[in-house]
Structures are given as C-alpha cells and as structure tokens.
C-alpha cells in the first residue's frame, strides 16, 4: 500500500480536537475573539439518499453531485460520461457539481487517483439506480411493465409505440426521487453507495470510452474561469500571514504602530499566529512587509543540508513496517552466486503550486462559510470547524478551483488561516500567500534513503531481494486538514504536531522467490510549524521508491550483461505487466543490448535510453525515456518518452493522454531539477529562481502514449501512476548514455559534471 488514507477522522475526533484547542488557547490567555454573527450552513446531504447524488430537472437534464473535485485533469467529464452512460442520456445534458459540502457527500476529495476508480463507481451505481427508478415510474404512469421499456437520450418509451413516451423531465422534473440507497457507512475515498440496479456491462458502453472534450477549458482560455483567488464578498478584507523568519521562531513583541500609516491595516495576533488585514490587497501586502516583529531565536532544528541523508541513516526509527515478506531472504542471499547492493537518495520536494494558496472565509456567530481551493474541501470544512470550535455542520465549505493542487499543499493551511483572520476581525477575509509561502511553507514531499540488496544465481536470475526505505514519514501532517494539529495555524497557536507514520514500498509484479519489502520512518525535524513538515505530494513517495527500485533493476541488468527490457521480462509473468513492458519497448523501437554498451565517448552530447516499469493500485505503466546529455554542461534533455499505460477500462482517452503528459513533464521536472534547499534554521527555496522547475525550452520533443484499454477490468486510477516511473527511466537512460549511475535526485548539471568527465 503506497497511498493508504490515514484512518478516517470521525466527527467526534474533530470535536475533541476543537476542545483541546480551546483549552490550549485558553491557557495561553490569547483567544479572546467571540464568534461573529451569521446564519448556519445547510446540513450536508447524506449518502443513503438517491437525491443526494442525482437531480432531474424540468427539461430532463440531470445534475450529478460528486464529492470529489477536478483540478484540471478532466475528472468531471469522466464522471459525466459514466453518469450519462447509465442514464442513457446525452453527456452534454449531465452537469457535475463538485466539492460543495452543502451539496455533495464527502467522497474524499481529490485523493490517490481514486476519482474514477472509487468516486466514479458510486456515481455510476447511483445513475443506474436513477434510471431504474425513472423507468419504473414511467411504467406505472403508462401502464406498461418496466422491462418492456427502453430509454433513448432521456426519453422512456415502448418500442414501436409513438404515444407511450415520457421524458425524464416529464417523469420527475424538479421532484425528488425519495429513494433509499445502500451504502457502506464509510465517508471519504472508500464510500460506496448503490441501489438495486445493476450498472451496464462494458460491452454496452456508448459514451464511456469516447474522447469527450473537457468542460473547463473554454472558461480558462477566455479568462472567465472563477478561481478561489477571485471570490469577492461585500465588506471583504484582504489578509496576509507573517511567517517566522526562522523555523520554530515565535513572535515575542509586535509593534502595531509600524503599520499605522497604512489605511485600515489591522493586526491579528494569537500566540504564534500572526497576520494582518487591510481593505486593499496591496495595503495588506505592505503591512505584512512593514510590521515590526521581534522574534525568538530558537535552536536551528534542521541538519546541514549536505548531511541530510546521513541524518536520515543515523536517525532513530519511529516505525518500521514490513509490507511484504516471502521465503527466506537472508538464507537465499547467503546461497546466491552474487550479491549486489545499492542506495538511492531523494530530496525534499515542494508542491510549488502555480500560485500561493488562497482562501476566503466569512465567519459569523454560530457559523462560517469558507471558499477553498483545497482538493479535499469536506476535510477543509472539518478543519475550519474544529479550529473555530463549531460543529462541522455549521460550516459550509465551497470548493473553488485553486492555483494548482497536487496533494496536501498550502491550500489546507490557507482555509484555516482565513477562517481565523475572519473570526478575529468580524469581517469576511480573503487570504492569499506570497510566493515564499507557496515554496517555503507548503508541506513537503519527504526526503528518503533507499537501500536495496539482491542475490543472483549463476544464470543471472534474482533469487533474493530486499528493499528498505528510511525517511521522513510521508504524513507528518495528515493528507488532509480536518484536524487543527495538521495545520500551520494549529501549530502556531500551540497544538503540537501529531505525526502520522507512513511510507510505502514499490508495487510491481516481479517473481522474486524470496523478498522482503519494508520501510522505516524517522522523527520529524521539528515538532511544530515546520517548513519541512511532510505530507502528500502527487503520487506520495511513488517517485522516490520507484526511482530506487527501477534504477536498481537496471543496475542488476547491467551487472549481468543483460538487456534492461529482457532482464525485466525474465522476472515477470503477470500477463498485463508483460504486455505493458513489451508495448513500451516495441513503440520505442527498443534495441536489445546491455545498457551503456554503445556509448559515444566524443560527441557534444551523449544519447541513451532507459526503461522503468511500475504498478500503482491496479494501474500498470512502463516508460521508455531517451535522453541527451551535454558533455560540456552536464545538462540532460529528456528528449523522448514512450509511455505504455494500462488502467483497465478507459473512460476518456483524450483526457487520459493529457493527464499522462502532465505527469511525464512534472515527473521530469522533479527528476532533473527539483530539490528544496535549506539551512539549519530555514528553507532557502523560496521562489522559482531558488526552486527551478522544467522550463518550456526543456520540454521533451515527443511523449508517445500507448493506451491499453481493458474494458473487462474495472477502471483504476490514472491521475498519478505515470509520475512514478519517470525519474528511474531518465536515470537509466543517463546511465546508458554516459555509463554513470546516478543514485541521487535531482540529476542537475552540477551532479552530472561532478561524476562524468
């Protein structure tokens, strides 16, 4: 399990958290703000009612209420297709409402590439049930047994009878279904609801599988899309937070007179929570810059960056988890003809979303509304409720597209910060971070070290395999912000970090007779408000562990003089995995030969190719990368990729291709450039100059995608899986080009120059 949802936080836990928070603040004597006046939010829809999921309008069009969100990967269209399919309705007539806590059930938000795999499946079930009920009602009205009726674009009719026809609008328009559903009682990703109807068989699909265009695109290119940054409310103030200059520093004294010259600027200060508001946004920014604060000077909490990986190796183990164990690894290792071992290192990485997070909050007495770009708006609502000391049903969370989201980024903190600012000043507050907050203060993807050993027999087959990761947990703070101890504001007001423990091991299908796969986490570097606190970043720990695992397989292939594709196939028998690896190699025109056996020792650039293969929760991906490495500068151009991708049934091939392209580019960026730099007391990657990402001039020339559609297999996720093989494929291609094995990401020119002469 690489991406398990940490245990569901119950409503009771949230309330307990709120109580703790109030006590803490009460003791500090700082929380003096009474709740402002305001109406209560509507109660949330419940999973057991068909009406919570589907509404039929007078014109027969349908709205589906989806408890996840789409950040631009086309999930809403895929869901519309699944719903339209079951309802036998044109897809254009299905509207999808997402991520509003008053209108959608909590399906976990965007999480773990489960949008179609899990979220969509419930929508399919409920759409099938809606169709069944509509046909049943039509049958009653027409006096025809429902099994004799057919549906065509939302019109129920008796074949061959021009009179016996009723549209969905005529049957139910604007009225409730009032039907009960079965559901499994699990809110979040794992929620499953269904009625009596059995959804269609894949061979009956007409809408699913079609390249239906995305719906959000036109608004975006014509500047008509509304982002959370664009939400405006009457009387709204603009807020800015003031982050500590050094990690762990607390404000000791604040001189409010330093911002007196700025019209309407006000200070909000509770313990370490420090912000300003002003009627004009530029004034809030100036006030944040001008505010005179005396900070404490704590012990620098971080290791020297160059010794990060040694720190990880030496640090005590908080949790060790063996995820897979088969046979007797050590005995087989002892009997092996040859044992090979290597270690790989991955740095902290930042979401570095395109814009720093923004949220708008309107906190009134007894209730609040928060507009958030968090990809898990129901949990953001819970977090806001907990920090305000309100029951969750008194807070209305409204998801509005944010400036990029690849997991638990800074949006989760912004929602809670905005709510506290609004509560303190009694006005609606729009809060946006500054660039350094997007880079330095977002939760980070964890740094890690991976040690792998393999025993090979005389024939060069792997007989024993041991994979162990050691690193920061992938969830110092939870992957969502439902509890204040998982937020910066909570920490700054006195709640200590309650680190969750999680990492992961590679998911692949190699037939190693003896294997052990384990991970270990180390303590967080700082126990609260750490700019290096970790949480989920797209494909949490997937890039790390598969960089290690798939580089190592390549090392074994090279050590045995084998071709990298042939060597993998030698250890694979699962038919889908074999097909994916073969498809990638074939499309790439892969030449069978050991890697690094055809190096050009003299040209200006050295060219090479590499492959990596992975699984993720049912999805199988193989990537072939072709690179050119500049001999002078050491710079790598990842020139061409071939991606073979099997995620079971494909809902929308165009959307899928675009999502894969995005992963390949972001994955390349992370492999070649990305590393959060820090000093012992602060993060020094604070903007795009100090945290470079892949430039447009470095774009691959081609990304060639082979989609393997398996209609008979339930759809698995596609939002993230193609991210995880990228670094290994590039690293393996660099080895082929140069003969140099890189075991540390990022593959910067400096790193390459240092080892490749």
């Amino acid at each position, binding site marked *: 399990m690489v991406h398990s949802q940490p245990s569901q936080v119950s409503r009771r836990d949230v309330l307990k958290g709120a109580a703790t928070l109030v006590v803490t603040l009460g003791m500090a004597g700082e929380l003096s703000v009474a709740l402002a006046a305001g109406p209560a939010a509507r109660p949330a829809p419940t999973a057991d009612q068909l009406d919570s999921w589907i509404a039929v309008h007078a014109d027969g069009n349908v709205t589906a209420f989806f408890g996840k969100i789409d*950040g*631009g*990967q*086309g999930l809403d269209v895929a869901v519309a297709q699944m719903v339209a399919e079951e309802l036998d309705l044109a897809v254009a007539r299905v509207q999808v409402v997402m991520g509003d806590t008053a209108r959608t059930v909590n399906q976990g938000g965007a999480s773990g590439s489960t949008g179609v795999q899990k979220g969509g499946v419930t929508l399919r079930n409920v759409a099938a049930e809606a169709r069944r009920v509509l046909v049943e009602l039509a049958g009653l009205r027409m006096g025809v047994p429902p099994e004799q009726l057919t549906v065509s674009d939302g019109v129920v009719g008796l074949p061959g009878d021009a009179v016996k026809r009723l549209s969905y609008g005529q049957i139910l328009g604007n009225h409730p279904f009032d039907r009960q559903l079965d559901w499994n009682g699990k809110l979040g990703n794992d929620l499953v609801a269904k009625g009596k109807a059995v959804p269609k068989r894949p061979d009956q699909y007409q809408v699913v599988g079609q390249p239906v*265009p*995305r719906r*959000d*695109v*036109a608004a*975006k*290119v*014509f*500047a*008509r*899309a*509304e*982002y959370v*940054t*664009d939400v*405006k409310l009457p009387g709204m103030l*603009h807020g800015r937070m003031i982050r500590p200059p050094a990690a762990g520093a607390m404000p000791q004294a604040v001189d409010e007179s330093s911002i007196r010259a700025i*019209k309407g600027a006000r200070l909000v200060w509770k313990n370490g929570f420090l912000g300003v508001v002003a009627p*004009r*946004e*530029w*004034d809030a920014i*100036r006030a944040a810059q001008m505010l005179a604060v005396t900070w404490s000077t704590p012990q620098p909490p971080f290791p020297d960056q160059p010794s990060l990986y040694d720190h990880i190796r030496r640090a005590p183990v908080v949790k060790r988890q063996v995820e897979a164990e088969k046979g007797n690894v050590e005995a087989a290792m002892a009997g092996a003809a040859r044992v090979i071992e290597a270690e790989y290192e991955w740095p902290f990485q930042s979401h*570095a*979303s*395109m*814009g*720093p997070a923004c949220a708008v909050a309107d906190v009134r007495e007894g209730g609040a509304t928060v507009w958030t770009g968090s990809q898990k708006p129901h949990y953001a609502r819970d977090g806001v409720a907990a920090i305000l000391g309100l029951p969750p049903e008194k807070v209305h969370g409204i998801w509005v*597209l*944010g*400036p*990029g*989201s*690849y997991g638990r980024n800074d949006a989760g903190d912004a929602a809670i910060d905005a709510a506290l600012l609004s509560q303190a000043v009694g006005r609606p507050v729009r809060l*946006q971070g500054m*660039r350094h907050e997007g880079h330095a203060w977002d939760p980070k993807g964890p740094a890690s070290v991976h040690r792998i050993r393999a025993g090979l027999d005389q024939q060069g087959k792997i007989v024993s395999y041991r994979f162990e990761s050691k690193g920061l947990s992938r969830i110092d703070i939870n992957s969502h912000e439902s509890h204040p101890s998982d937020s910066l504001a909570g920490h700054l007001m006195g709640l200590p970090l309650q680190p969750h423990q999680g990492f992961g091991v590679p998911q692949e299908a190699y037939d190693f007779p003896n294997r052990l796969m384990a991970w270990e986490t180390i303590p967080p570097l700082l126990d609260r408000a750490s700019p290096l606190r970790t949480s989920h970043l797209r494909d949490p720990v997937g890039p790390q562990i598969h960089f290690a695992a798939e580089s190592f397989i390549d090392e074994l292939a090279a050590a045995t003089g084998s071709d990298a594709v042939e060597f993998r196939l030698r250890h694979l028998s699962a038919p889908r995995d074999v097909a994916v690896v073969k498809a990638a190699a074939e499309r790439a025109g892969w030449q069978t030969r050991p890697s690094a056996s055809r190096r050009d020792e003299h040209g200006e650039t050295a060219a090479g190719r590499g492959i990596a293969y992975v699984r993720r929760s049912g999805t199988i991906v193989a990537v072939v990368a072709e690179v050119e490495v500049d001999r002078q500068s050491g710079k790598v151009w990842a020139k061409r990729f071939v991606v073979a991708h099997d995620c079971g049934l494909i809902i929308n091939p*165009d959307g899928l291709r*675009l999502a894969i*392209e*995005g*992963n*390949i*580019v*972001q994955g390349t*960026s992370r492999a070649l450039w990305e590393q959060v730099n820090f000093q012992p007391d602060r993060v020094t990657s604070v*903007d*795009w*100059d100090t945290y470079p*990402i*892949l*430039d*447009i*001039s470095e*774009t*691959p020339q081609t*990304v060639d995608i082979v989609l393997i559609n398996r209609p008979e297999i339930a759809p698995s996720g596609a939002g993230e899986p193609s991210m995880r093989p990228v670094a290994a494929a590039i690293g393996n291609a660099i080895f082929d080009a140069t003969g140099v094995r890189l075991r540390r990401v990022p593959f910067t020119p400096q790193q390459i120059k240092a080892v490749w002469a």
Partner: protein
Amino acid sequence: MTERIVLHVDGKSHAIAVDDPEMPLLYALRDHLGLANPHFGCGLGQCGACTVHLDGVAVRSCSTPVSAARHARITTLAGLGTPEHPHPLQTAFAEEQVPQCGYCINGWIMTAAALLKETPHPSEAEIKEGLSGLKCRCGTHLAILRAIKRVAQQA
C-alpha cells in the same frame, strides 16, 4: 497623498484612486477594477501568471508600477479575444485542451500573442526561446507548444 490615475483597460477607461504610485499594476487591475484576470503567481516577475499587454507589449503586471501604465493601452486575456471573437491562440488553446488548473494561462497566451505579432511564423526554437522563463506547474508544456505551433503554422 492619494493620486488619481486613469487606466485604459480592454477598451474602457477607469479612474482609480491610488495611495502608492509604486503599487504594481496587478493590484489596480484585480483589486481596484475587480478584474478576475490576471493572476498573482509570484509577484517577482518569475512566472508570467500576471501577464498583460501594454500597447501590445507583454509585461508582468506584478512588477510594473501602476504609474507606468498611465497612458498605455492595457489588454488583458479577457480583452484579447472573446468566445464570439476569439484570438487564434485562444481557439488553439481550447482545441488542444491545454490548461489543467489554468492559473498560468495569461503568461502563455499573452506572451505568445505578443511574440506572434512580431514574428508571425516562429520556428519551434523561436517559440521556446520567446516563452522561456514562464512557468506551468501542472506540466502542460507539450500542449502549450502544440497550440502555439498550430497558430504559427497558419497562413
């Protein structure tokens, strides 16, 4: 010290009262005029999310003082074209389904529009050079280049 500044934005003139003439144009557009575009990405001239045209030249409004825009014709993405009268780049970006989050879009379309005005048929290398430095965190680089090349190849 409030100063009155007239801005000509997307064919309309607006008078605004400004306390700080050094205030970036971005805040005049977003906050004083209430336009949803352009976006704040970095405030440092490093990403392009705030790009507008001043007299047809692409500038980063986050690092252009409002006072410097006083007499210029300011065009935002909303003024570049509309669904009824789209700029060819908007058509191409829509057809290629370029944006994921789309927060970066001003940078790409506005910079490319200025580039194509200077050089109507740029080579791939010229496109990449002209756009270098703009950011897209979602990684839509390939689709961006496809869309711009589509327009660059039109007669």
